[in-house]
């Protein structure tokens, strides 16, 4: 029997490296003007196809 171990999503991110960013936004679109006024923090996750960022608004 062969057993393949597969890391859970985000596992590599949490364990192997620190990848945090503070994204900023600029827009003139009224529905998204709230983006101009917030501070955010993101966790980056390196993937073969490019990074995935999970972004949270700091309330």
């Amino acid at each position: 029997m062969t057993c393949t171990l597969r890391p859970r999503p985000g596992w590599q991110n949490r364990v192997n490296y620190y990848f945090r960013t503070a994204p900023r936004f600029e827009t003139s679109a009224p529905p998204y003007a709230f983006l101009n006024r917030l501070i955010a923090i993101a966790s980056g996750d390196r993937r073969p196809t490019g990074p995935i960022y999970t972004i949270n608004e700091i309330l």
Partner: protein
Amino acid sequence: MRTLEDEGITSRPLMTVRIIAAPLQKFGAVPYGVRSFVPVAGGDFEGPRLRGRVLPGGGDWLLLRSDGVLELDLRITLETDDHALIYMTFQGLRHGPPDVITAFSRGEVVDPARYYFRTVPRFETSAEAYAFLNRIVSIGVGETRPDGAVHRIDEIL
């Protein structure tokens, strides 16, 4: 929708920085907005892993944007109680209802729950004991005080 908590991202207290400001210098309406400069006269900082004083000589280059948001751009020197120097910078945003902004201009104390004041501090140091600061992203919650500001800073884990 995934959140930072889903990613296992948490935070822990880093320090509270109290900044004593010198009188504001007004540049007025420059091409980017209304610019002013707040020199830093001093202050102090304290947290579980570091404490000391804010040296005079830094400052905050404020920009009041056309949408009423105040952008902060602070650069200061921290000196720890064991004499290490730490260069601290942050960019941040402050905004709130008109009566709060008016109260600030009168030098009044306002409940911090009534306005948004968040920053993203960064650090540079050559001191081994504090080298961990070079490698972290952090978030600050600011409070405007009549004599300056207080920033409660958390390390993002």
